[in-house]
């Protein structure tokens, strides 16, 4: 414990010295989020310095091994670091699908060469990744995907189309599920990595009901991918895909935390029935926060059921949708203003939140997974 206390005081002092004041301001909008990547334009010097300082220490990925660009921290140390970062209200230095999704899968399934090559770039925020999973004909039935990768001897030749590819138009590389065999549905899928600048790759943003375009259609037309850019074995990509989905669901479930504050304290509802609905929500939100803490501890200790991220994703996203519904109610007609000096954030967030229980597997898919793998109900 004494070592941990030392770690805490050292960490506190280091953060005090290295986290710029500007990076301790709350995130106001998407524009404040640092995604990194080859073409990233830092919003400010402070954003650049903060990422640089944290990456230097391996603290963009505190619990990854040091040899792959991580901080090599124990779970206890990583928790202390998180607490100290929260204490000073510091922003995340880097938000990235490389960290939250590809990295964990690569640590589990990648070759030593792949880990040494890709992971440090992810940790430093040098490559921005996107996820090529869903297709027009493969949404909830993801394993029905048809994007084809043919073995051409010295390369894979990829043809097909993805959809709902988050930030494909801004990403440097893609991790992509492709069909390498039609003999088996799940057993014919492979997990490929390739550069989005490869000839034959094109993207087209999709305008959402929220007015933003975070997702794209992504097209592959005779895209040549080097043979060694496959993670895991040929036709065994579904294992990698599912493992990664667990991390994606865990990440999305964080939406249930809604920034941590009480909705009632933020909205001060006067109407007694609305206040009652918001109080009921706050109970559920605080209970979910306790669940999230417990889940994280159990997951790290290997005591959580492998399918439990599905439960977390379901509960967290349904909660976030409810938060946004109540925020709209509390806002009244103010919350309807789309284009005013008050900004229209509330209605945009509300509309965006509807996707939470669709992306990463719908709520219905998650409930099905819980029914089958945790409850072991027949025929599920």
């Amino acid at each position: 414990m004494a070592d941990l206390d030392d770690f805490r005081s050292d960490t506190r002092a280091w953060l005090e010295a290295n986290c710029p004041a500007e990076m301790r301001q709350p995130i106001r909008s998407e524009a404040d989020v640092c995604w990194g990547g080859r073409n990233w334009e830092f919003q400010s010097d402070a954003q650049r310095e903060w990422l640089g300082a944290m990456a230097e220490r391996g603290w963009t990925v505190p619990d990854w091994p040091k040899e792959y660009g991580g901080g090599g921290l124990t779970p206890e140390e990583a928790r202390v670091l998180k607490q100290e970062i929260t204490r000073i209200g510091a922003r995340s230095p880097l938000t990235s699908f490389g960290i939250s999704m590809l990295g964990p899968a690569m640590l589990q399934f990648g070759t030593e060469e792949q880990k040494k090559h890709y992971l440090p770039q992810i940790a430093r925020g040098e490559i921005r990744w996107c996820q090529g999973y869903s297709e027009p004909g493969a949404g909830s039935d993801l394993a029905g995907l048809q994007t084809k990768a043919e073995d051409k001897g010295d390369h894979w030749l990829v043809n097909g189309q993805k959809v709902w590819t988050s930030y494909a138009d801004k990403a440097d590389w893609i991790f992509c599920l492709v069909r390498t065999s039609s003999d088996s549905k799940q057993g014919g899928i492979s997990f490929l990595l390739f550069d989005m600048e490869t000839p034959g790759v094109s993207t087209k943003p999709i305008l959402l009901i929220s007015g933003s375009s975070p997702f794209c259609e992504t097209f592959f037309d005779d895209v040549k991918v080097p043979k060694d850019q496959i993670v895991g074995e040929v036709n065994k990509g579904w294992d990698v895909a599912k493992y990664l989905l667990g991390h994606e669901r865990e990440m999305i479930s964080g939406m249930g935390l809604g920034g941590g504050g009480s909705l009632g304290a933020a909205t001060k509802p006067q109407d007694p029935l609305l206040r009652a609905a918001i109080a009921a929500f706050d109970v559920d939100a605080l209970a979910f926060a306790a669940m999230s803490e417990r889940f994280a501890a159990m997951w790290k200790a290997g005591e959580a059921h492998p399918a439990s991220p599905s439960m977390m994703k379901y509960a967290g996203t349904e909660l976030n949708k409810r938060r946004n519904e109540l925020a709209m109610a509390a806002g009244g007609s103010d919350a309807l203003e789309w284009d005013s000096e008050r900004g229209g954030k509330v209605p945009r967030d509300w509309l965006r939140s509807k996707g939470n229980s669709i992306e990463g597997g719908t709520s219905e898919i998650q409930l099905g997974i819980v029914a089958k793998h945790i409850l072991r109900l027949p025929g599920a």
Partner: protein
Amino acid sequence: MTLLTDDQKMLQETAASFLADEGAIAKQLRHWRAIGCSDGFGHDLWKQFAELGLTGISIPESHGGMGLGATEAALVLEEIGRNLTPSPFLVTAVVGARAIAGTAHADRWFPGILSGETVLALAVDEGPRHAPDRTALEARRQGNGFVLHGAKQFVVQGASADMIVTAARTAGSPGETEGITLFAVPKDAAGLDVDNVALVDSSKAARLRFDNVELDADAVIGEVDFGWTTLKAALDAGRAGTAAELVGVASGASAMTLDYLKQRKQFGKAIGEFQALQHRAAHLYSEVEIARAAAFKAAAVLDSGSEQAELYVSVAKAKAADAAGLAVREGVQMHGGIGMTDEHDIGLFMKREAVLGELFGDNFYHRERVARLSGY
């Protein structure tokens, strides 16, 4: 800590096997109900709790108890809830012991609790809804002592108790927390009328009438006019404990229902194959897991003495009641006709949930408390 220590896991295993065996529904709840027991629980079982040291779970080691916290109590109560075991554990070992800890009354009552001979009760509610700050039962000074006059209700195991911790008003008016004093009222106090009422779940709670009950000054627990802090601490220990028991009730009902979904066949297949039921079962699972996390969080913040304890206790009590309510409603519905019969146990879970949901404040009471503690 969010995960259990090895000692806590051992305690959990001990409690689980003891209660699944000795505390089982057929052996305890149905047995005492069938013979119309006036206590609603068995004293022999309470002695067995004592033999395992469990009656002294929260009594300090210096007094011969286990000196454990809310987390350990929660582990035992979850198993009690799962088996619907009637016992004085919650009100005597968790709430009552907490109320008199550190006072002269501890020396008087702890030995009997430790040996499993003594039962305590807590008299707070005066109306059908929990509102401890509205305490109105009058305690007026007379000579060196006090005279208590008024009424209490929903005093769990009040007719079985050797001593009833009673909240009374020595100053101020209902709604004010200052002016509330706690008294140790012996069961045979002159002028105390005890109406032993069977509740919907076959447990017993008393309605008490205090008709100018005279007590010596040494009957006061803690300080005159300043009993609120102790009362609130005892209530919060009880609320966290009730939350854990509700999680047990929810788990027990869910497990029974899940078994039924796998075994009952209609249209030529197990009804658990129908997606309409699968998704509801999965949603229920999610709610119960979250309630368990909330209950253990509340226990952990109580044990760490955090300022957030009150908030999380209310979150836990409200969430656990919500989840257990869902579990028993879905339980009865998914069992179909058999779930409506007295012969089947699932209905017993529904009845127990109704009582625990109300005890020490229902989910409306605790949502209100969460709102106020959150500043709105």
